[in-house]
């Protein structure tokens, strides 16, 4: 079965997770959250969430504790930059592959 079944005649997509493929594979450094520093986790209150707000990929949850969907996180580091308590560190992916 070929791709004709999709009935598109030009590049077309509908909204949905993963429309651009598993973009997590693009990542060279992974954001790691230290929950001892992260405000919602430390205070057990729905507060701050600046990482959730700034994430351009929408892969950070507004939950306690905050979670990052690594299947689609491209590792852009914006979350680490905006975190007021420096709870997020970028760790080289090579350290996870070994």
């Amino acid at each position, binding site marked *: 079965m070929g791709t004709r079944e999709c009935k598109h005649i*030009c590049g077309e997509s509908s909204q949905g997770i993963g429309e651009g493929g598993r973009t997590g594979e693009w990542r060279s450094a992974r954001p790691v959250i230290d929950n001892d520093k992260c405000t919602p986790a430390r205070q057990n209150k729905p507060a701050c969430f600046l990482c959730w707000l700034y994430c351009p990929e929408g892969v950070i949850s507004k939950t306690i504790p905050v979670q990052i969907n690594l299947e689609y996180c491209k590792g852009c580091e914006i979350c680490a930059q905006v975190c007021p308590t420096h709870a997020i560190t970028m760790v080289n992916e090579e350290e996870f592959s070994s």
Partner: protein
Amino acid sequence: MADRKTSVQIIDGNRAAAIGATLSRVQVIAAYPITPQSPVTETLSEFVEEGNLKAEYVAVESEHSALAVCTSASIVGARTFTATSSHGLAYVHEMLHWVAGTRLPVVLACVNRAIGAPWNVLNDQQDSISQRDTGWIQIYARNNQEILDSVIQAYKIAETVYVPVMVCYDGYILSHTEMPVDIPSQDDVDGFLPPYKPHTTLDPASPRNYNLVTLANPRVNAEGVLCHGYMEIRYLLQEALQNSRETIARVGHEFGELFGRSYTGMFWEDRLDDADIVIAAMGSLAMEAMAAADMLRDEGYKVGVLGLRVFRPFPKSDLVKVLKKSRLIVVFDKNVSYGLEGATCSEIKSALYGSGANAVVRNFIVGLGGRDVKARELADAVRKSLPAMKEGALNNEYPEWICEI
């Protein structure tokens, strides 16, 4: 046909294009003025200003923006028109690819003009020939009536096969020369051309993203459906152009039934039935070739003329049918692929490959940058090519140029 209301007006080619767009009820026009196309945009903006054409006329700062406006308008369901020439067409090159790749039925009138350097505002066909690989259907008009008729047909063709159409006509020779043009009534055009139905739907209730980054391989989308990779989308464009020939012929036939001027062929023929010598040319140049054929017929040569009308899709098999018997084909090109030869010559030769035809093919480059093309010169070129028939030298490596060098 007798009961159809028409009016004959004496108009130039640019006005014929503007009236063709108006009768097609275009809804969005975006164009940037450039010689010799400017009167098209001026006329259309007048029609809109006077209230005789209910369309958005979008003033833009460049040809690139003009086609970007048409792209956006077309994707949300508006019938769009733009026009340009020469450097304007070169500047819009990128957007030509976008429109074709998005399969939007935009119609563009290209008023053929030479391209720099050096500066020149006069006619040849280098501008549109340089855009032949962008995925647009290209139709070349031979007179002002064909300009008007081709614009109207272009919408029906484009909106059927979802491929944009470029209607090309020679600058000054047609664009600024007045001739009688039979103008159909709005009612009749409405009967011929149904409203535009876009293949895309932009609806906030069902958000879509068009022309997203498309990876090399097919992929499964959010709904679990396997979608095209880049190559599949590009294949569909090629397939659409390959198949568009039937639509072009059908639309041309329907037009003939309604308006009495039939356009079923990808090219027109003059005295080809008994001809063993064929002059091939495109646009108004082929009209001049008819005068050359008259001279040669008087001398006893069996000469016919083949006037290419549709350059893309290129009518390979149709050409083979009419050229099979010919012994000499003299191709005149108002363009050149530098380092090789004229584009129509290359393509006619490629059509003949493997067909069993053994015609001698000679190519002459003429009329660049507005150089006057005289029928006498075309006839001389044919006479000059006659000895090759006896020698059987089928092909020459490079074309001859009819100029003073």
